[in-house]
């Protein structure tokens, strides 16, 4: 299992994911810094990502769209806040309108990526997601990445079981 931990802190409205990868920090950095590699992991197989612009400098923008099974193409963007190859990347990830401009109605979240060598040719990657409001955090909770929501999921299952309506 490459994901070694997923935790969240409700007070700072943040979630932290730690993963260990069998590669050097330089190699892991390429996953973020090379748009052709980024688009091979960012979107799930059913919603592959296409990166249309990629400027990994402070203030720079990464623009992408995903392509769904029905041909739908939701658009997203990153705004780069900090960049320090191959160890650190901080950006805001948000939804974009049809014309590529940021969709202000949707909350964006801040992502902090930290990449550190841990020896034996292995690298630890830390991804911290920080949400601006409780509502946005609730969305994150809804993403099912932490225990509270796992319980909620279990409860929904229980509800559906009791419902017994097909």
């Amino acid at each position: 299992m490459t994901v070694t931990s997923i935790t969240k802190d409700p007070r700072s409205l943040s979630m932290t994911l730690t993963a260990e990868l069998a590669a050097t920090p330089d190699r892991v950095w390429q996953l973020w810094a090379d748009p052709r590699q980024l688009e091979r992991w960012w979107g799930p197989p059913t919603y592959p990502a296409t990166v249309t612009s990629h400027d990994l400098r402070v203030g720079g923008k990464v623009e992408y769209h995903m392509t769904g099974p029905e041909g739908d193409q939701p658009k997203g963007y990153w705004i780069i806040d900090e960049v320090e190859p191959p160890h650190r990347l901080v950006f805001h990830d948000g939804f974009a309108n049809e014309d590529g401009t940021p969709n202000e109605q949707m909350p964006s979240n801040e992502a902090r990526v930290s990449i550190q060598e841990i020896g034996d040719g292995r690298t630890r990657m830390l991804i911290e997601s920080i949400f601006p409001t409780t509502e946005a955090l609730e969305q994150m909770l809804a993403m099912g990445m932490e225990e509270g929501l796992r319980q909620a999921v279990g409860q929904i299952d229980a509800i559906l079981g009791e419902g017994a309506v097909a």
Partner: protein
Amino acid sequence: MQVMPNYDGMFGALADATRRDIVRRAIDAQEGVAQIASHYPMSFAAVQKHVAILERAGLVSKHRIGRRKVVRTNLEGLRVARRLLDQYEELWRGRIDRMSELITNRQE
């Protein structure tokens, strides 16, 4: 990126334990808001507010049975939420898996 943002209200509604409990009770569609409120150590107004949030999220609706108005759970809505929750849960794990795969392939 979070996919399918239209379900925000639904997830927010389900993030609260009291509201999940109301959703469970309302499956039988036997009780009105006042009766539901009697199960909780909080004011009628507070429970009414919870029901309103669930209603807006499409998780429950009110139906007239004779002279009474009962709260009924929308099971199809719950199923949709459940499927999306699974999807979200897998999103980042899937990304990390794909990263590992890319790294392994390039090294060979």
